[in-house]
């Protein structure tokens, strides 16, 4: 897309498979598959955030579809679509007519597929089969255990891993040079410590830290920049809840969900991460409680009530540590 604009993550998103950092195993197999594109199966990518899943899917589409990408690629994100009905309608309309002669098939990228309920996935399976005459699917998921087996078994599955330290630091070094930023190896390693293997987060930290220091990256700027991510706000909510301040925790949660539109499942994902990091002695119980409310959010009628009840439960578990 022309103009990733201000954000380096978009501006420097790899356009070709060969530019994707890390993921040697997955990328190697995918390139082998694409030597005979006509035989490409449906694909499924799983792995944590910011490691190149969506990027790789887009690279494949670009390589297979070339100039016809515009009309032959459908991008869907299950987190944004309201239910299986919307997905089905869009897929149906898209797969209604076949591709032009010079591309082997059309491509549908369904991102965050693990956001769909098991029922919706069962319906999705039919949709995939119906469209397969004309289309190939690339399904992307954070958590592959949330994808039902009949879908997994219809796809070639690739696991994406957190970006190793060496690769991540080297890539940040190249970006820094391209953007004329002064950053020594030690600061880049500090960024790795903050972002762990999440390359998107790492690039965002680099850009924000560089902007703060007018082109010079320092340890202080890095820490401040790392704290901007809204995942930190979720961590604040969890801390307040476990410290017994339910009112404050609830207000923080409501702001994230109702003002910023954070999905309940993203909230839970980051909340789980925060619990892992805090590692309370009764962590098993805490995670069990969260799993219970993960279910209740789907089955109940008001996510706000369910998430608040979860925060109250965390308060009880926090007090009994």
């Amino acid at each position, binding site marked *: 897309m022309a103009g990733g604009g*201000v954000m380096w993550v978009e501006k420097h998103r790899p356009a070709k498979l060969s530019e994707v950092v890390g993921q040697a195993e997955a990328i190697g197999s995918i390139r082998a598959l694409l030597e005979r594109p006509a035989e490409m199966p449906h694909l499924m990518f799983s792995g944590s955030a910011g490691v190149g899943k969506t990027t790789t899917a887009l690279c494949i589409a670009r390589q297979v579809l070339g100039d016809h990408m515009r009309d032959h690629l459908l991008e869907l994100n299950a987190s944004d679509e309201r239910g299986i009905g919307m997905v089905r309608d869009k897929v149906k309309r898209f797969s209604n007519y076949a591709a032009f002669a010079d591309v082997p098939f059309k491509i549908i990228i369904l991102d965050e597929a693990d956001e769909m309920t098991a029922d919706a996935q069962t319906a999705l399976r039919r949709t995939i089969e119906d469209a397969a005459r004309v289309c190939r699917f690339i399904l992307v998921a954070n958590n592959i255990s949330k994808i039902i087996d009949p879908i997994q078994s219809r796809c070639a599955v690739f696991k994406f891993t957190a970006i190793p330290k060496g690769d991540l630091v080297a890539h940040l070094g190249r970006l820094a040079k391209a953007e004329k930023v002064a950053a020594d190896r030690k600061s880049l390693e500090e960024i790795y410590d903050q972002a762990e293997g999440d390359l998107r987060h790492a690039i965002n930290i680099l*850009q924000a830290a560089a902007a703060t220091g007018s082109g010079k990256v320092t340890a202080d700027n890095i820490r401040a920049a790392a704290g*901007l991510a809204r995942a930190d706000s979720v961590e604040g909510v969890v801390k307040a809840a476990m410290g017994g301040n339910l009112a404050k925790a609830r207000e923080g949660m409501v702001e994230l969900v109702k003002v910023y*539109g954070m999905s309940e499942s993203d909230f839970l994902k980051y909340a789980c991460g925060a619990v892992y990091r805090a590692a309370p002695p009764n962590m098993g119980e805490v995670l069990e409680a969260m799993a219970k409310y993960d279910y209740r959010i789907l089955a109940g009628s008001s996510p706000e009530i369910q998430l608040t009840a979860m925060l*109250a*439960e965390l*308060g009880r578990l926090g007090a009994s540590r």
Partner: protein
Amino acid sequence: MMWSEKHRPASLSAMMGNEEARGQLAAWLKGWRKGARPVLLVGPPGTGKTTAAFLACEAFGYDMVGLDASDARSRSRISGVLGPVMGNAGVSGRPALIFVDEVDGIHGRADFGGAEALLRLLKEPTVPVIMAANSDASPKMKSIEKASKTLRFRPVPPRLLRAHLRRVLREEGASLSPGTEIRTAEGCGGDMRRMLNAAQSLAAGFDIPADAGQGMLDAQAGTDAFFAAGDAESALAALRAMRMDPREKIGTLFSAVATARLPPEAAARAMDAISEADLLYGRILRTKQWRLLRYMDAALAAKLHRATRGAGVRYERYGLPWQLLNRIRWDGRAVRSLCGALGRRMHASSSEFSTVYLPYLAYMVGACGAEPPDLSSEGGDGGQALAAALAKEAGARGGMPR
């Protein structure tokens, strides 16, 4: 999502009813000069006073700073919160406007001295001040009225309500029988919010008992009776007497418990009871087995009452600080459209964009002076609402844009 929130009008001119008052409000704000008298909007609940105040604020580029009846209006609070704003800009760099909702609630004991502080403030306003009240009958309101220009809001006529109801039903792909439609529009006393809440329950299959006679309790009386009840039976009686649909009933109890500051153990048990009631209600909505409803009251009366007995839980209309409610109502829509639009450009879901991209984008624009993305092709208004939302986020991330 509640229809009454979702179908809120997007501009002053898209509102229903009270055309004259809305026009006067817009003209007043448009021609506002330092020293001009404040306006006081008087009218029954649900006639659009708060909505009109906010939309006027948006239309003329002001940033709303406000208080309402859920704030303790001590003298120090009023001068502490509002004093510094006078003559200063709001958080996003736009000029500030003060909005005091439900001023007629200001004279309670907790608000001792608040009215005087407010009056002093009204005498020499350096920024526009809008107040709203349900009634101006009390003697203290007279002094506020004397210092301001009064605009009256009347119940919205059934004809307009019904037109609005039909539009909402159409957009929701729902329908009611013509008879129900008329009854819903006429039975709400000109209160738009009440009408939409009732319509939403009716469309979901719930039938508010038509024979609700005397002795029925409203939300406040019912909630207070429930938590004050000495035993589970009287608690159950209070619940049964509450004349409202199950969603609202659960929501009202939830609001009361969430603001009660119970000790952790009791809070967890009380919330668990409410969570289970909501779970049951979710199941009923999906399966349309309305007969299961009778178990909801009983379960609440047993579990929730036991968990909160003697804890002094009380009705709380808002349940969240007013500032946050306003952000949800007014910023939420624009922020979410912003995240949807930019998320599509960057191959991320709206939630993902909001969480991992927006904080950085806002920081880069707000604190480091980066050029914001071009939003002119997004949204119905040339992207103005989205650009304003981004500017506000950027402003909050330190440093002012430009």
